[in-house]
């Protein structure tokens, strides 16, 4: 099956700093999503981005499908950005999403 690797596993920032999270995957995909898991455990959908670039406020994401990676950018980080960020990929259709192990982000005031 598809392998998903996320880096770095842990990231500690000061409020206001920028960061880049990376997701590498081992096969072609038709579905790629980025999620933020808040301290209460809920997964918040950030981006559905099997290819191309999207932006939503301070967050943006780029997927280069031909090179099998995706990047999540967080600018001007805030303490509320803390949590675990997951990348999940799938081959589309009825194929399941496979999650990476996540990047744990801590933003200190």
């Amino acid at each position, binding site marked *: 099956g598809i392998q*998903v690797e996320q880096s770095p596993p842990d990231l500690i920032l000061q409020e206001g700093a920028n960061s880049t999270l990376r997701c590498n995957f081992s096969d072609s995909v*038709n*579905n790629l*999503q980025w*999620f933020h898991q808040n301290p*209460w*455990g*809920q*997964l*918040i*959908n950030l981006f*559905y981005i099997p290819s191309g670039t999207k932006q939503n406020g301070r967050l943006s994401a780029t997927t280069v499908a031909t090179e099998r990676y995706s990047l999540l950018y967080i600018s001007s980080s805030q303490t509320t950005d803390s949590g675990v960020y*997951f990348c*999940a990929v*799938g081959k*589309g*259709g*009825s*194929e*399941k*999403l496979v*999650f*990476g*192990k*996540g990047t744990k982000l801590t933003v200190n005031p």
Partner: protein
Amino acid sequence: EAEVAQSPRYKITEKSQAVAFWCDPISGHATLYWYRQILGQGPELLVQFQDESVVDDSQLPKDRFSAERLKGVDSTLKIQPAELGDSAMYLCASSRLGGAAQYFGPGTRLTVL
């Protein structure tokens, strides 16, 4: 904004007891997923429904777990009997179709004593 509903939010049970979790997907979403997330790991799919039909239950421990979505809307996941290793977060998600963006509910945190 429409959301996926799950209940209960927390469940504590003793091993060998039966437990059940409920999920109501976003209205109009044909595909429903149950995931299990162990602490420190990413979610893993247990079962996927397309309307009332099971599409993928390859990772569902069928000797003790069962799932149904009788009318193609809400769904129930059951564990009988519960074991210590079942302690985890159980997440439900839905999407318009398989392969489309998935939206998650708040989850049920299960503790088996």
